[in-house]
């Protein structure tokens, strides 16, 4: 009787110890590669490199998120990015932190070329080399490369850079959600197979 009891306890302890050791070993040996997590987070971020999150670029913010920072500090990415991050990290999505800015439609920088004095300050500020120019020569923005990060606006000593909303063409058009379309009928119809015209007739 006592023997059986002790045997059972010993067996369970042994099993617990063995599995505990196995789990402990696995957690060390098969640790999730932090770099790959950072890569995945970085892939979700919009890569404007704008620094509105408070970090000097998207990758530093990705590293911070991997360390446990909030996922709602990226205004250019907006709700869509927060949702993707929440899915990726399996956390609750939060509303965008207004402290870091608001979600805006995509914009690009535009240099009023007549006013540019050729100081190259914006070129140095541009994180994606989207501005061409040389000292004492007019600068201009390569529109297709500009991420709309705003970083060139502040350094400009003559305030000749505007942020312009990108015109949306047919290529950017997304067919509307049918539920957003205005109804062709007046008023709601409660579940019935009658159409309003017939119903009123």
């Amino acid at each position, binding site marked *: 009787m006592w023997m059986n009891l002790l045997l059972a306890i010993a067996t369970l302890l042994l099993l617990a110890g063995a599995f505990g050791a196995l789990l402990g070993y696995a957690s060390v040996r098969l640790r999730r590669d932090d770099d790959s997590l950072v890569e995945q987070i970085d892939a979700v971020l919009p890569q404007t490199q704008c620094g509105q999150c408070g970090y000097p670029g998207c990758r530093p913010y990705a590293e911070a998120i991997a360390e446990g920072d909030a996922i709602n500090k990226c205004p250019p990415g907006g709700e869509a990015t927060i949702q993707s991050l929440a899915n990726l990290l399996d956390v609750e999505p939060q509303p965008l932190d207004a402290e870091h800015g608001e979600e805006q439609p995509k914009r690009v920088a535009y240099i009023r070329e007549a006013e540019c004095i050729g100081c190259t300050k914006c070129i140095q500020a541009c*994180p994606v080399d989207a501005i061409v120019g040389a000292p004492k020569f007019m600068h201009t923005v390569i529109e297709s490369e500009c991420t709309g990060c705003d970083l060139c606006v502040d350094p400009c000593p003559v305030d000749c850079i505007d942020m312009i909303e990108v015109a949306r063409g047919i290529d950017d058009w997304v067919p509307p959600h049918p539920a957003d379309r205005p109804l062709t009928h007046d008023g709601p119809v409660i579940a019935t197979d009658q159409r309003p015209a017939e119903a009123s007739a």
Partner: protein
Amino acid sequence: MGTQFDFPGGIHPPDNKLRSLQTPIRQAPLPDRLTVPLRQHRGDPGRVVVAAGDHVLTGQPLSEGQPGRSVPVHAPTSGTITAIKSHEVPHPSGLEETCILIEADGRDQWYELAPCPDSASTAERYDHLHRTGVVGLGGAGFPTRDKLQSAEAAPDVLILNGAECEPYITADQALMRERPDSVVAGALALWRLVGAGRCLIGIEDNKPDAIEALRQSAEGTSVEIRVVATRYPSGGERQLIQLLTGLEVPSGGLPADVGVLCQNVATAVAVDRSLRLGEPVIQRITTLTGEALARPGNIEARIGTPLDHLLFEAGLDPQRLHRLIMGGPLMGFDLTTTGLPLIKTANCLIAGTAGEFPDPPIPQPCIRCGLCEQACPVDLLPQQLYWFASAGEHRKAEHFDLFDCIECGACDWVCPSHLPLTDYYRHSKGVLRQEQKEQAEADHARQRFEERQARLEREQAEREERRRARQQAREQHHNVAPAEASEAATAAATSPTAPGPDRETLIQRRDQARQKVEEAQAQLAEAREQTPEAVPKLERALNKHQKRLDAAEKALSDAQEDT
């Protein structure tokens, strides 16, 4: 008739084709003003090669193709270009795109056309087709050259699509019954061009007149006329391929993957005319139908003709017009204005009355009846897709093969809850495409950012390297110079290019050092009066400069002694 194969699903809507088949193809009178959109195909617009004020001749190129899927457009008639500007184009979005506006001079003088020479290679023939603006005229507007090039080897089967399964549309039927010879000529031209094993023309059995006419014209050639049972959407490219060959185009693949090339019959005629006559695509046959028209029928009109011009020709009663649809009733889209131009892909224009096209009933909730699943010609699960698309879970819809949906509208047609299912799928596809585009842009930006970071680091390292090298050189000079001065002097005496700075540089250095010392002294004097806390730092700086000055003077005097 060979073995009949089958595709799943499909519907039998009333075809309403007779109305527009009462009269032969008419020629539309030349309009006074034409609007030619730069983009009338699937791809990017070409580059404009004319300017406002230019006089152009019929068939003259207005734009040229760019790398990628960019097809040129041509002047539909002779006249003067009044403007090149944004103008509304026929598109479900109702947005504007760049168009070339032409005021016709009424003379319709032709530009000199260059037929494709007989000696041309296949690649040159493809380019010739591209230069003459040939795109798929069935409705999708895929550039023909790109479609032909998609096959690496010659296809086994060339299929000409004359099924024209969508209700109301009869443009291809009219073409086949009235100009069967040109259709067969087009089939032969395409066949020669791609070198397929067989050439089939697929037609639905509700077009007996077209079948008979084509049979007669094809006599003596190896072109096979294949009649298929009428069922929507047998005219879909993949569905027709499945019907005629039993082969299923893989998901995300092309007909070329199963060794088939499929072209619309009207495209084949355009290919023939392009190769043989050098004629660009500047006109097409389009169906004008609907109860709001007094004289419905098929009309051959120049590209760029304003739609109201055509509708007037067909006797439009504006009072009765309720919906204006470009394309068929199932796959077409509504137009809100008649001021739009005719484009290459416009195969039908329906001016429907309220009785003919009543407003869609209010959608009711999905009851999961499964009718849509039975109607789907691609074996998808429409209700499941609807579930995801309406909830904004586009990724999940993608996993349920959303992109295999051909947007035929069969599910809408059978839905007892009147759900606009296809609209949901279009929305979902649009969102996913936009996401893909944004992702590609983000990846591009990341690459540029990383490369810039790497460049900055490299430059920094190079600067550091140069600075260290300079410092090293200086130290070496200071340590070595006195000890080896005599040696260096003899070397200098024997070789005029001996190393070491010359006298002028040394003087310059001494002067610079002296200047620095003076500056530092002035700063120090100033600091003593105003900011005493900076004094020790400045004193150190002064000492440093003083030492440098001493060294420079010593070096100079050494050099003077040597000489």
